[in-house]
């Protein structure tokens, strides 16, 4: 699957998420993941939207997003130009016999144990999406009880920032 990562700066106002989500549903665009959070400017939120490039015309997605009045800026981050990370919390059942093996896997992926009980542990992993998939695949045979992923977030590599060009009317908000 070819995915495209869009970084979308939006005004931090009520209804913005509904407008973005409504656009995706109305235009039959397929979202792989969507994450949203504040930026260093309280007036601006940043969404990272991953779309499936095989079923969805990415150029149309970008242009239609740009038409939304509360959307300030849309930037496509190419895989090579961006650092991409996703956080996952993974609850795995542990038999005493395999505890050491599980912890070795966790160490290999720099995953932290954030909760430990008699029958389960919870791992916190921050990885690129591909690496996270690999970790989950390795844990699977041991019995993954529950999985929660944040969806991808991404930032461009190098000194450039998404707000290099002034956002009309808002001024730089980095």
């Amino acid at each position, binding site marked *: 699957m070819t995915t495209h990562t869009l970084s979308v700066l939006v*005004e931090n106002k009520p209804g913005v998420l*509904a407008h973005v989500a409504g656009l995706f549903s109305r235009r039959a665009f397929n979202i792989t993941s969507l994450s949203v959070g504040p930026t260093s400017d309280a007036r601006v939120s940043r969404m990272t939207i991953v779309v499936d490039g095989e079923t969805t015309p990415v150029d149309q997605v970008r242009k239609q997003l740009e038409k939304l009045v509360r959307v300030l800026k849309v930037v496509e981050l190419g895989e090579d130009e961006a650092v991409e990370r996703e956080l996952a919390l993974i609850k795995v059942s542990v038999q005493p016999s395999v505890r050491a093996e599980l912890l070795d896997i966790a160490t290999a992926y720099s995953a932290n144990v954030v909760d430990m009980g008699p029958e389960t542990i919870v791992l916190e992993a921050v990885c690129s999406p591909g690496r996270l998939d690999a970790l989950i695949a390795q844990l699977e045979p041991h019995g993954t009880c529950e999985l929660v992923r944040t969806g991808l977030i991404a930032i461009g590599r190098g000194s450039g920032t998404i707000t290099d060009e002034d956002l009309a009317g808002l001024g730089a908000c980095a």
Partner: protein
Amino acid sequence: MEVTGAQALVRSLECQGVDVVFGLPGGAILPAYDPLRSSSLRHVLVRHEQGAGHAAEGYAWATGRTGVCMATSGPGATNLVTALADAYMDSVPIVAITGQVPRAMIGTDAFQESDITGITGPITKHNELVTDPGRIPAAIAEAFHIASTGRPGPVLVDLPKDILQATTTWSWPPALDLPGYRLPGPADPERIAAAARLLHQARRPVLYVGGGVIKSDSHEPLRDLAELAQAPVTTTLMARGAFPDSHPLALGMPGMHGMYAAVAALQEADLIVALGARFDDRVTGKLAAFAPKAKVVHADIDPAEIGKNRAPDVAIVGDLRTVMAELARATRTIIDVEGPADTAAWVATTAGWKSSYPLRYTQAADGPLKPQHVVERLSAMTGGDAIVVAGVGQHQMHASQHFSFTRPRSWINSGGAGTMGFAVPAAMGAQIGRPGELVVAIDGDGCFQMTAQELATCAIEGLPIKVLIFNNGFLGMVRQWQELFYDERYSEVHLGTDIPDYVKLAEAYGCVGLRCEQPGDVDAVLEKALSVSDVPAVVDFRTHDAEGVFPMVPVGRPNDDIVLGPEFTPAEQQAAARREVIAK
């Protein structure tokens, strides 16, 4: 100065230059109706909120200014939904103002509560639930700015009752806070030059003119460009009137029920210059088979339309009025050096198609009465000097095909959304926007019954609109599809011609009611209707129920499969399919 939120709303509308509001009050919007009593604003009290929405649309189509409608929360607001969807599809600038339950009750399933911003998100250009009385002037000013600039469209402003009642400080003009709202700058001169070059090189160019040409008031640059480039012009359903039908370069409407010459010219073109048009499926037929030999120049104010359906060779984003003026100038520059483009053979070819395969129908002197005949008589008797409003269906296609349009903003209809019931309320809005002019709604009997209640509004307001009902007793276009594609298995399309009695209905609504059953009576009845000057005149034309709309491209099929219709012989149909093009 201290005012209530409701006073701020009414003053904002006044300061915005609004002259008329179409609306109907109710609980949540009540506070706004109090200051309206002492306002200069004219409020037109509709009988159903959908009528307010379409009236605002008709006003906007006819005048180019932003139409305004107002409704209360819940069902009042949801009754506007169809009109908002219609305005969104046809890029009509309207502002809808809705009451909402008080802020503290939002989300509690309060009486007449509905999430109208949630509901209308996908069918408005923008909407806002205002939560601060101090923001009312800015919200209204922003709504008008967004509705009327760029690609126009509907904007909804939802106002909770308690902020209309709250006190706030009045000031005008407010600062617009729209950092994410961008309008395209001047078009790229290199692309204009490239487009002019393609146009000059083309041997079989066609200007494919859409509604954007009318919205941007670009009919004059269009005429300049067409005559300069000697390029035939097709005007879509949204663009009827942008180019006079009597012009030698006019090919008429393209698409599913387009003129053969317009459809064939696009199929054979080596260059299509799309101007404010969006390659809609009703124009292209099967997209992959549309205009297979053509390069495409696509100019539009909305960047998202470019490449959406057909990849262009030259894309121009900008305001069409300047784009077309610059394109004409660039074309003239090339002609000055290299001489005029060689399109004479092509123009002759397309003119030949026009005369070989015209619209054809037979009106026998003793009936049955053909709808096409009524449209042609109206066109002839008015000299095209009328604002024609249509609903959706066979009557709409017959009106678009057979009325000879001479000027922009003389054709109003529901294009993209295909909203039955559009005509009567839209005609009401058009008549209010252009009071001295002749406004004629051509409607089907199915459409008419969906919004006929606005005849009461028109009668009370003294609006002399004409409503010509093409009463064939059927949902005619659906009937035609069942005839052609379901082997005449008619299902739930028969309405009957006699219930209601349209003459009595018109009279009950305070209008003049007339009936016409025979072809020979058409002129006299039309004259009588046109002479009514103080209330609407409604004419029940008993039209032939088996009449179809032709030509026709069956849905989903390539435009090359165009069917000329039963009035043409098999030999003519075959000749049309084999058509010869002189300018290779």
